[in-house]
Each structure stands twice: as C-alpha cells, then as structure tokens.
C-alpha cells in the first residue's frame, strides 16, 4: 500500500520532468506516450487503493520531517482514508480520460509536449493535495494546482485574452488564498501543530470565536479555489484554456479542492454552527446566482462554467447544513458528468472548427452521434433525471438540507435545479437540434477521432450508473456508509428513507423534467419564445447576460482605484521623490566634482607646493599645540 501511495503522485511527477525536459527535442508528437502511461498506472493504483480502503485499511504514514524549527514541525506524510481514496479515484479517472482525450484534441498543437508536461504536473499536485496529512501540505499543493491552472489557462499565451484570463485566475485565487494562509497560521498559533490528526484531537480547547475565525478564513480559501460568490469571477474566464483543461481542472478536480478542504476540516467546521451557516449561505446563493447567469450565456463553455460554479454551490450547501456525505457524493457524481460534458463540448468545438458560440451551431445531432448521446447522458445526469448520477446526488443534497431544517436552502436548491435542467437542455437543443445556423461550419463538422470519443463513452458510464450503485437507498446508500468513518464524529442522526423522502425525490425529479420540457418548448417547439421572454424580463435578462456586472463592479471598485493609486505613486512618489533623491544626490556630487576639478591640474609642482604648505601647516599646528 505504501508503494502504491508513493507511486501515485511520483509517476506523473517523473513523467512531467522527463516530458518537460526532453519533449521539445526528442518526443515531439509522441509526448503523450509517457504521460498517458504514467497517469494510467496512477489510475490503476488508485483503484487498488480504494479496494484496500473498502476492506478497512487506512494509512497514516510520516515519510520524513520537512521543516523543524523550534516548536514548528511539519512532516511530509500521507493520510489515506475513505475521503482520500474517493478523491483519488475521481481525480485519476477523469485525469486519465482527459489525458487520452487530449491526444486527439491537442493533435498538431505547437506546444503538444508542454501541454502533457503541465497536465502531469497538475496530476502530481492534485494527488499530493488529497494525499497530504497536514494543512501545510494542503496549502503548498493547493498553490501548486493553482499554478498549473494558471499555466494551462494561458496555455495559448500568444492570445491576449488567454493570458489575461490566466492572470485573473491567479489574482482572484490570491484573494482567497490570503484568507486560507491566515487560517492555517491561526490554527498553528492556537493549536501548535498542523497535522490533521493533531489539530482535530485538540479542538476542545479552542474558543468559539477563534473556531469561527479559523473556519471563515479557511472557507475564504475554498471560495477562491471553488469559485464561490464573490470570488467566482475567474472560473468563466478560465474557459480560455484548452477544453481538456476546462474539463479536468476547472470542472472535475481542482475546483473541488475547496470542497475537499472543507470536508477534510469537518471536525473544525462542526464546532462552529455560524461558520457552517455561512458556508451553506454562500453555497446556496452561488448555486442560484450562477445558474441564473448560465440561463442566458451563448458560449457553450461559459454555460458549462457557470453550471460548474452553481454545482459547487450545491456541494457547499450540503457541507454547510451538515450533510457531509451528500456533498462528497455530489462532488464525485459532478466530477464524472461535468468532466464528460466539458469533453463533449470540446468535441463539439472540435467538430465546428473552433466555434464556441451556440448561436452558430445547430443540427449536429446526426453528424456527431457519439458526442450527442454521451452529452445527453451527461446533461440528463446533471439535470437530475431519475436514475442517473445527478438525480441521486442532488437529491441527497436537497434532502439533507431539508432534513437538517434548512428548508430555505432546499427551496433555493430546487429553483437552481430547475434552472440547471433548463440551461443544459437549452444548450443541447441549440447545439445539436434544429437547423444548422452556420452552413459553412456545419458542412465541415465531423465526429471526433476515437481518442476523443472513447473517453466520452467511458465517462458516460459512471455518469449514468454511479447514482444507482452508490446512492441507493438515498442518504444511507453505499457512499454514505463508505464515508461514514471520516465523518463519524460530525454526522447527526442517520436518516431513514421514508414517505417524506419519496415525496421530495419525486418533486426534484419533476422539477428536473419540468426544466427540460421548458427548454424544449423554448428552443424546439416555439423558437420565437426566448426573444419574447428576454424582452419581457427586460432588466433581469440584461443583468444575467452581463453577469450582473460583477466584473465591471470589481473594475470600478478595486481594479481602477488601485491602478490610479499605482499611477499616482509612480508619477509623484517614484518619479518625483524617489528618483528626485537619486538624481539629486548624483547632481550634488557632480557639482562638487566640477568645483574640485581644477585642483587636479596635472602640474607636479602645484601638488608639491600644496604638500609643502600642508606640511608647514602641520608643523605650525604642532608647535602651537606643544609649546
């Protein structure tokens, strides 16, 4: 087990180093061999690990002492429990599929080797993030995945918008990570250790106020990484990166790091009901807020991006109300179906020759059969169609909120679920149904190569059946029992499936189907309706279309004032005062030099005469002083 735990992160790291160093000159278009092989082995080992964990094994392994300075000790160590194992499985499965998919998607790109090297680096960082056994490792690899995200968003760095999006993602994440870093420091100051087990075992001695502060600071990091309002602005822009990256990093794995962190810190959070409420509140607001933006976006990837933000909001609702396993269940299910949907959108974009605007698509159903059917499975799954993954996971989130007494979060979640179903099927109807709107692009449209369609099929399988496998019966299904040891201390009363749950379940199923039907009415039956509805909604429609002007607000309130401040400091303080000092001292010594220059006449006798005078002066002074 130890070997497996070591190999899972180290294989992608080795592949990153080798591909990164030698890819450009030696591997070139064969760069993917090593990368895909490394991740494939990691995937197999992850499957092996989850089987071992299922059998009841756990691993707490201190590998070596990393930092030891006085009382500050940090170990590099691994913790493998149920939570880690399930995260590893999601990360490695989606990661493996995305690697395979990228062979086709990135074919012929100038940075082919670079792309696979970065993907490997990301896999390494993400594995280490979930495997670590202390907060500092979590933080370090949290930043490392952020770095990979930055590198991959601005992968096509000659494109200005891509470079900007990368910078934006990095900067917005800094805001969250600032809080996260402070939270970790506060943990160390109060508890004196950073290892999970050490922190969780000494929680009794921490005051409520400190506990709430720690939780809120940690959650600030989660808000950044998992794109929760008001730090969600980077994720839609991150879609500038290649689509496999959007699928892997910005849908299925890295953005889940925030959810993982809150779930991992569940013992801390459960001590602070106020912080939990904030988590749920932010999650619920983000869920409905992002979903409403997703309703009106026209870029196929932007719709999926807002959908991701919204679904992450669901997970935080689940964690915040204390339905921990439901949140993790939704994370797993969402990882699979959102990974699938993004890869599907990549396949569509590939077919359309790079076009991302849904208004120019249409009628692709028959040209790209595999993409279409796998996409429909993913969309049905996220919409909560009965029997598919999202139905069970979303239902357990909503039921969890309802059971814990947060009926208002349940209601918000239900509305967001309706919106989710609507915008997903709006996307499908605009893209795959109806008449082609751009004949030229349509004529060239073709199904993607097998390296791209096989991952779609593979990911469609868990999207379809994982709910049935893990989620039955609701709220005490297989996944709940599997994760129980992790959340043992923080779980409330076990829920027994009753008539109320059956009612809730039917209701959320009806809501999902209702959303699908409404989309069908709007975009297939009566294509004139969307424009009318948009005109009727007026201000609301424009607000959602413009993403509620959040970016503009940030520009007006933060970015432009800071820029103005910077310009002022540059013009007045730097050029005026700092440079004035430097130039002034230079001018002063220049003047002194010019004044003294004539004394260096080059005439030996002048020098001698001054020496002589000096000697006389010394002599006279000596005589006066001694006599």
């Amino acid at each position, binding site marked *: 087990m130890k070997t497996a735990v070591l190999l899972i992160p180290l294989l992608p790291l080795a592949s990153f180093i080798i591909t990164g160093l030698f890819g450009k000159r030696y591997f070139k278009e064969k760069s993917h061999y090593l990368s895909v092989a490394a991740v494939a082995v990691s995937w197999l080992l992850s499957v092996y690990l989850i089987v071992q964990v299922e059998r009841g094994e756990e691993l707490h392994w201190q590998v070596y002492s990393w930092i030891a300075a006085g009382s500050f000790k940090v170990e590099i160590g691994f913790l493998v429990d149920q939570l880690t194992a399930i995260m590893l499985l999601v990360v490695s499965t989606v990661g493996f599929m995305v690697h395979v998919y990228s062979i086709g998607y990135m074919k012929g790109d100038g940075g082919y080797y670079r792309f696979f090297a970065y993907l490997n680096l990301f896999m390494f960082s993400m594995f280490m993030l979930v495997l670590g056994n202390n907060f500092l490792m979590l933080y370090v690899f949290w930043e490392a995945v952020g770095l990979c995200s930055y590198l991959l968003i601005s992968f096509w760095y000659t494109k200005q918008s891509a470079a900007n999006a990368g910078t934006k993602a990095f900067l917005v994440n800094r805001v969250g990570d600032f809080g996260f870093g402070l939270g970790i420091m506060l943990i160390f100051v109060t508890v004196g250790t950073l290892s999970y087990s050490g922190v969780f075992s000494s929680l009794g001695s921490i005051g409520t106020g400190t506990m709430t502060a720690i939780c809120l600071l940690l959650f600030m990091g989660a808000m950044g990484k998992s794109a929760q309002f008001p730090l969600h602005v980077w994720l839609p822009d991150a879609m500038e990166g290649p689509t496999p990256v959007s699928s892997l990093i910005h849908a299925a794995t890295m953005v889940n790091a925030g959810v993982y962190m809150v779930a991992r810190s569940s013992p801390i959070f459960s001590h602070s009901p106020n912080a939990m409420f904030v988590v749920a509140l932010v999650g619920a607001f983000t869920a409905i807020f992002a979903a409403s933006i997703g309703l009106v976006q026209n870029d196929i990837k932007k719709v999926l991006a807002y959908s991701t933000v919204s679904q992450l909001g669901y997970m935080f609702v689940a964690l915040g109300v204390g339905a921990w396993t439901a949140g993790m269940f939704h994370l797993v299910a969402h990882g699979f179906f959102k990974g699938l949907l993004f890869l599907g959108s990549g396949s569509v974009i590939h077919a359309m020759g790079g076009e991302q605007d849904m208004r120019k698509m249409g009628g692709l159903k028959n040209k790209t059969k595999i993409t279409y059917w796998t996409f429909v499975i993913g969309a049905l799954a996220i919409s909560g169609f009965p029997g598919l993954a999202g139905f069970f996971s979303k239902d357990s989130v909503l039921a969890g909120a309802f059971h814990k007494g947060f009926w208002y979060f349940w209601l918000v979640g239900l509305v967001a679920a309706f919106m989710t179903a609507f915008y997903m099927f709006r996307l499908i109807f605009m893209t795959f149904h109806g008449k082609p709107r751009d004949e030229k692009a349509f004529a060239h449209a073709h199904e993607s190569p097998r390296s791209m369609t096989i991952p779609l099929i593979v990911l469609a399988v868990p999207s379809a059946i994982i709910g049935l496998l893990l989620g039955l019966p609701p709220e005490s299904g297989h996944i709940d029992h599997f994760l129980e040891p992790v959340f043992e201390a923080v779980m409330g009363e076990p829920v027994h499936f009753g008539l109320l749950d059956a009612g809730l379940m039917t209701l959320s199923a009806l809501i999902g189907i209702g959303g699908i039907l409404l989309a069908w009415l709007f975009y297939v039956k009566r294509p004139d309706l969307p424009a009318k509805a948009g005109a009727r909604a007026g201000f609301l429609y424009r607000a959602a279309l413009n993403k509620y002007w959040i970016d503009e607000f940030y520009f007006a309130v933060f970015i432009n004032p800071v820029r103005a401040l910077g310009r002022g400091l540059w013009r007045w303080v730097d050029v005026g005062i700092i440079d004035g000092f430097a130039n002034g001292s230079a001018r002063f010594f220049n003047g002194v030099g010019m004044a003294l*220059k*004539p*004394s*260096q*006449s*080059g*005439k*030996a*006798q002048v020098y*001698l*005469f001054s020496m*002589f005078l000096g000697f006389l002066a010394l002599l006279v002074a000596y005589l006066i002083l001694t006599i």
Partner: protein
Amino acid sequence: MTPLQQYLALSIALFFIGSWGVLARRNIILIVMCVELMLNAINIALVAFSNYSPTGAGRGEVFVFFVFALAAAEAAIGLAIAIAMYRLKERLSIGDFDEMKG
C-alpha cells in the same frame, strides 16, 4: 665644540634651498638635484643629533647610509625618467608634463 644649533641652522637652510628648487625650478634635472640637496640637509641633521645624543651615538650615521643608498637609487631612476621624458617630448620643462590633469 660647535653648538648643535649651528648644524641645525645649516640643515634647515639647505633643506629650504632644496625645497625652493623643487617647487620653483622648471628643469627636471635641476629638480632631481634639489631633491638630493634636501636629502643631504636631513643627513646633516641626523649626524648632528647622533653626535650630540648621550645614548644614540652611531645610530644617526646608520640612517645616513640608508639615505645615501636611497639617494643613489633615486638619482639613477630620476635621471632615467628624465631621459625617457626627453625622448618623449624633446623638452625637459616640468610644465609640459600635465597629462594627468582632471
């Protein structure tokens, strides 16, 4: 016995004559000669002090020998430099050699 003051007066006179020569003359060879004059003024002072000192008899003379050696070396090098300077500019006036001015 001649008093010490007379030796010292001679020494001072010679020293200032030499100094005047070094500072005022233009010809490099004359300047070198005046430096010799200054050195020998010091020699007189050293010998006189040595002779009048109750404990230091003979020590001053040792210094004089050192100064002789130094003066000989200085004369050799100084005259060699003077020849080199003459070859350079065909003149020996010190005012012509002011390339090191700032």
